[in-house]
C-alpha cells in the first residue's frame, strides 16, 4: 500500500456533476450530511438541469451539486470550485468554467466514449489532448470498477449503473478523510426492505474508498478541521425546508392550525412537498387547481382562523395579485411566500434572481400596502417565515415573504432553535359580542379583530368593497375612503416600531456602504470582509425588512460617502432607497440567474473607492 500524505485545508469547494440520472444530488447531499456532522461549516447549492430529464450524455441533461465547507465561517457555496467530479464528458464541458486554475478533476473515463464526446460537442477527447493541462486530472473508470465490485451479485446492469455515484462518493470520503457511517446508516434505513440494493450500494461505496486508499492514483488526502460554530445542536437544512418549518413553528406558537394552499411551481414546490409530510402535526396542505385557487383557499382558511399561507414563484405571484388585494382589504392574516426565480415570464425557472421586489412592494391595483420580508440565508429562512407569520397574525395583514431559488435549494448548518425561546405569537380571536365591531382597531397596532366563524354572536360580513371605518359596512363615502386608505397604510408603517433596528456590519460610518437584501448576504459579507482586510472603509447593511424598513435606515445611509446596492436585478432596492431617503445610491447589477460573483463586485468597489465611479 502506498504511503499517503495528509494535508490540512481551511476550506474546499467540490462540485459533483453528472447526468440527471447519475444521482449527483444524492451524492452531494450525502457528502454534505457527513461533512456537517463532522462539524464543518458549509454551504451548498444544487444546480439542476433545466426542467426536463434530458437524454443521457447531453449538455442540457447535466446535473450538478456544489458544496463549500471549511473550518472557518462559510457564507456561500463558493464562486468557483477546487475539485470537480465529472461523471461524463458533458458534465466536464458544462462545469469546467467553474473550476479554479490548478483545481482537480476526477473523471469517470467510461463517460468519455465516442457517443458521450459527440453529445457533449467535443471534437476530440479532452482527456487525450492538452486542453486540461491547467488542472490535475484523475482518470478513473468508475463504471467498470463499480461493475467489478458487484460482479458476483446477480443484479441488473441498470442497477449497477445507478450505483456508480457511490463509488465517486467513496473516493471523495477517502480524499477528504470523512467517515462512511452517516451514509451507511442512511442506506440501511432507506433500503431496509431492499437488501440487494442495500448490499450493492454499500459495496460500491466501500470499493470507492478502498480504491483510493489502495491505488497510487491519489497521493495526498486532506483534512478539514471542524469549524468553531456557536454551541448548540445543528442540522443541515435547505431554505425551502426552513421556510416550511418556520411556518410550522409559528403555527405552534400561535396555537393555530397551519393551512397551505398552493400550486406546484419551480423552485417553490419543495415547500408544498415538505409541508404535506406533516399530517400528524395537523398541517393541512391543499394542492389547488392554480395559483389563484391556492391563495383564495388560504384566504378562506384564514377567515376560518388558520395560519394560512401560500407559496409560489415567478408567474405564480402574478396570478395571486388580485387576491392579495382582497386580503389587504379584508385585513386577514396571510403569508405569501415567493421563492424568486429568473424572469420575466417563464424566464429561467430553475435559476435564482431578486427581480420581484418592486412587484412585492407595488404590484397591486389601488393603494394596497403590505409588509415585505426577505430571508438572507438558507437557514435564516426559518426565522423569516416565523417573523412573517408573527407580523401577519399580529397586524391582521397579508405579508410577502421573499426568498429565492438560491436560498430555497441551497443548504447550510442550522442551529436548531429552542422552540420555547422563540418570540411569542398570540393571535387574539375576539370571543364576545360585546362591543364587537369588525373594523374597530387595536390602539397600538391598528389591527382589526379576528372574529372567526363558529363564535356565537360575532356573525358579520366582510368583503372587497371599501369598508366603513369601525363597522366594516360597505361605504362609498369619499372621506371614509381617504381615511381607510390612510389607516391601512398607517397600520403597515407602524410595524416599523415592532422590528429591530438595522445593524451595520463593520464600521457605522465610512467611505462606502454596501446595502443588500435577500440571498446575496453571504457573497456581500465575504466581499466586505475582504475589502476591510485590505484596509478599505467599507461596511455592509443587509435589509431583512423591506417594508416597512427599520426606522434607522435613513440615518445609517447618511453616514457613508457612497452607497452601493448590489442586486441580482436591474436595480430595485436602489430605487426605493433613493426615493425614500434621497441618497445618491448607485446599483451594481448582474442578472445572470446566478448568485453574485465576488470578484466583479470587488473591482466595482475599488473603482468607487478610487473615485472612478
Amino acid at each position, binding site marked *: 500500500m502506498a504511503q499517503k500524505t495528509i494535508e490540512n485545508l481551511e476550506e474546499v469547494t467540490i462540485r459533483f456533476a453528472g447526468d440527471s440520472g447519475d444521482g449527483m444530488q444524492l451524492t452531494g447531499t450525502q457528502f454534505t450530511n457527513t461533512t456537517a456532522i463532522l462539524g464543518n461549516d458549509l454551504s451548498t447549492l444544487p444546480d439542476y438541469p433545466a426542467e426536463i430529464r434530458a437524454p443521457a450524455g447531453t449538455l442540457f441533461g447535466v446535473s450538478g451539486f456544489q458544496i463549500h465547507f471549511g473550518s472557518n465561517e462559510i457564507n456561500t457555496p463558493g464562486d468557483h470550485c477546487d475539485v470537480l467530479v465529472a461523471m461524463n464528458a458533458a458534465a466536464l464541458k458544462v462545469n469546467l468554467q467553474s473550476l479554479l486554475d490548478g483545481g482537480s478533476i476526477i473523471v469517470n473515463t467510461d463517460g468519455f466514449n465516442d457517443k458521450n464526446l459527440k453529445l457533449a460537442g467535443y471534437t476530440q477527447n479532452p482527456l487525450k489532448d492538452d486542453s486540461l493541462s491547467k488542472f490535475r486530472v484523475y482518470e478513473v473508470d468508475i463504471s467498470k470498477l463499480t461493475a467489478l465490485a458487484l460482479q458476483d451479485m446477480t443484479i441488473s446492469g441498470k442497477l449497477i449503473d445507478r450505483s456508480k455515484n457511490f463509488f465517486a462518493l467513496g473516493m471523495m470520503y477517502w480524499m477528504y478523510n470523512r467517515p462512511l457511517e452517516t451514509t451507511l446508516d442512511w442506506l440501511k434505513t432507506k433500503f431496509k426492505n431492499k437488501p440487494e440494493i442495500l448490499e450493492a450500494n454499500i459495496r460500491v461505496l466501500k470499493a470507492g474508498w478502498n480504491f483510493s486508499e489502495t491505488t497510487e492514483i491519489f497521493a495526498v488526502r486532506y483534512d478539514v478541521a471542524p469549524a468553531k460554530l456557536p454551541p448548540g445542536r445543528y442540522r443541515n437544512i435547505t431554505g425551502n425546508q426552513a421556510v416550511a*418549518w418556520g411556518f410550522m413553528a409559528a403555527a405552534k406558537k400561535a396555537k393555530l392550525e397551519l393551512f397551505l394552499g398552493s400550486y406546484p411551481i419551480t423552485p417553490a414546490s419543495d415547500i408544498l412537498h415538505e409541508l404535506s409530510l406533516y399530517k400528524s402535526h395537523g398541517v393541512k396542505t391543499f394542492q389547488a387547481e392554480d395559483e389563484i385557487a391556492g391563495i383564495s383557499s388560504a384566504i378562506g382558511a384564514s377567515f376560518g382562523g388558520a395560519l394560512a399561507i401560500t407559496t409560489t414563484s415567478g408567474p405564480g405571484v402574478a396570478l395571486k395579485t388580485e387576491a392579495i388585494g382582497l386580503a389587504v382589504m379584508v385585513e386577514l392574516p396571510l403569508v405569501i411566500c415567493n421563492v424568486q426565480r429568473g424572469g420575466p415570464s417563464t424566464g429561467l425557472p430553475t435559476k435564482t434572481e431578486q427581480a420581484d421586489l418592486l412587484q412585492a412592494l407595488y404590484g397591486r391595483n389601488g393603494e394596497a400596502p403590505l409588509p415585505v420580508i426577505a430571508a438572507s440565508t438558507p437557514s435564516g429562512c426559518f426565522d423569516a417565515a416565523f417573523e412573517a407569520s408573527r407580523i401577519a397574525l399580529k397586524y391582521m395583514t397579508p405579508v410577502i415573504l421573499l426568498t429565492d431559488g438560491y436560498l430555497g435549494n441551497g443548504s447550510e448548518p442550522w442551529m436548531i432553535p429552542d422552540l420555547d425561546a422563540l418570540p411569542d405569537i398570540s393571535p387574539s380571536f375576539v370571543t364576545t359580542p360585546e362591543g364587537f365591531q369588525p373594523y374597530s382597531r387595536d390602539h397600538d397596532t391598528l389591527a382589526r379583530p379576528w372574529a372567526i366563524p363558529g*363564535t*356565537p354572536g360575532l356573525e358579520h360580513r366582510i368583503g372587497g368593497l371599501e369598508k366603513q371605518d369601525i363597522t366594516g359596512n360597505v361605504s362609498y363615502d369619499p372621506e371614509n375612503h381617504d381615511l381607510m386608505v390612510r389607516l391601512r397604510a398607517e397600520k403597515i408603517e407602524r410595524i416599523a416600531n415592532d422590528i429591530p433596528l438595522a445593524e451595520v456590519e463593520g464600521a457605522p460610518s465610512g467611505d462606502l456602504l454596501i446595502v443588500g437584501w435577500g440571498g446575496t448576504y453571504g457573497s456581500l459579507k465575504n466581499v466586505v470582509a475582504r475589502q476591510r482586510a485590505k484596509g478599505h472603509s467599507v461596511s455592509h447593511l443587509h435589509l431583512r425588512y423591506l417594508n416597512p424598513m427599520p426606522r434607522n435606515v435613513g440615518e445609517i445611509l447618511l453616514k457613508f460617502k457612497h452607497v452601493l446596492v448590489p442586486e441580482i436585478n436591474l436595480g430595485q432596492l436602489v430605487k426605493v432607497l433613493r426615493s425614500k431617503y434621497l441618497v445618491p445610491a448607485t446599483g451594481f447589477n448582474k442578472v445572470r440567474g446566478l448568485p453574485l460573483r465576488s470578484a466583479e463586485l470587488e473591482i466595482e468597489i475599488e473603482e468607487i473607492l478610487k473615485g472612478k465611479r
Partner: protein
Amino acid sequence: MTTLIEDLVNSTAGIPAQKYSAKDFATDQDVRWCPGCGDYSILAQTQRVMPDLGIPKHKTVFVSGIGCSSRFPYYMDTFGFHSIHGRATAIASGLKIARPDLSVWVVTGDGDGMSIGGNHFIHLMRRNIDLNVLLFNNQIYGLTKGQYSPTSEIGKITKSTPFGSLDFPFNPASLALGSSATFVARTLDRDPKHMQGIIKRAAEHKGTSFVEIYQNCNVFNDGAFFQFTEKDSKDETVVFIEHGKPLIFGKEKEKGIRLNGFSPEVVSLKDGKYSVNDLLVHNEKDTTLSFILADMTHKPHLPRPVGIFLAIDRPVYDREMDRQISFAREQRGIGDLKKLFTSGDSWVVQ
C-alpha cells in the same frame, strides 16, 4: 396541545341551534337589488329554510364572488364573505377544509360561477368538498349592466354583442356532471316551495351540492325563464324530476318522457299508445341517467327538466383530509416539532 380553533369548537359544541325564524337570518342592511329582481325570492326562501336545518347561525357562512347575486351574504345574518369575482368557490374550499365543522354556502352568478370562476367550479365538483353552491342563473351580467353571459342563448343582443352573441351556452347541470359532481339540481326563483325543498336537500347532502336557480333579472334580461315559471306555460314546458317517479308533465299530467333507445322523447299518455309504465323513472343515484336528463336542457321539443339530477355519495374531501390527519396521528403519534427538528442527521457543537 389543542389549537385555539379546537378550543372554540369544543367550547361551543354544546350550544344547541336556537329555534330560529326566517327573520333571524335577516341583517340590518338595505337590500339593494332592483325592485322585482328574482334574487329577492331566493333570499326569502333561503332565510325560510335555514331554521329547519338545525345549524346555529354562528356555524353558518355564506361566501360569494362579485355580481348582483353575490351581494347575498350582506343580507344573511350569518358569517359572510363577499369576495372577488369568480373565487367564492375557491375561498369557500379553503374555509371548509380548514373548518369542517362549519356549514358553508357559496352564492354565485352565471358570470361569477361559470365565466371567470369556471375553473374553480369544475374542480370543486370533482373534489366533492362539503359545500352548498347556489348559482343564480339569470343568463346575463347584471352588475356590470347587461352583457351576455356564458349561459346566454346564442344570438343574444347585448351591450357587448350588438350583432348577437356567437357562443353556444353552457348547460350548468351538464357541466357539473361532466366534472363528476355528486349532487346536481335545478330550481326556479318563482317556485318557492320547490326551491325550499331543493335547498334543504342540498344542505343535507354530504359533499358538494350544486343548485342552479333560474333567476329573473327584470332589468337586463326580463322574462328569460318566464316560459318555465309562468302559470300559462310552465305545465307544458317543465318536467319536474323526482327520484323513483316517472317523468310526467302537462297541464293534466297527460304527457310523459320515455326513452327511445337512450334518447328521451315526449309521449302522450292519452292516445293509448303509452302508459305511465312506459315512462322513464328517475333514479337520482344513476350517473348515466343524470347525463341523459341534463342533456334534455338544450333540446328543443323536450320540456325543461327541473329537480335533482343526481345525488350520490362519494368520499368527501374535507372529511378525508381529517381522516388522513387522524390516521397519521394514530400511526405516528401527534406530531412533535422538537422531535422533528432533531430527527435524522443532527449534531452537537459544544
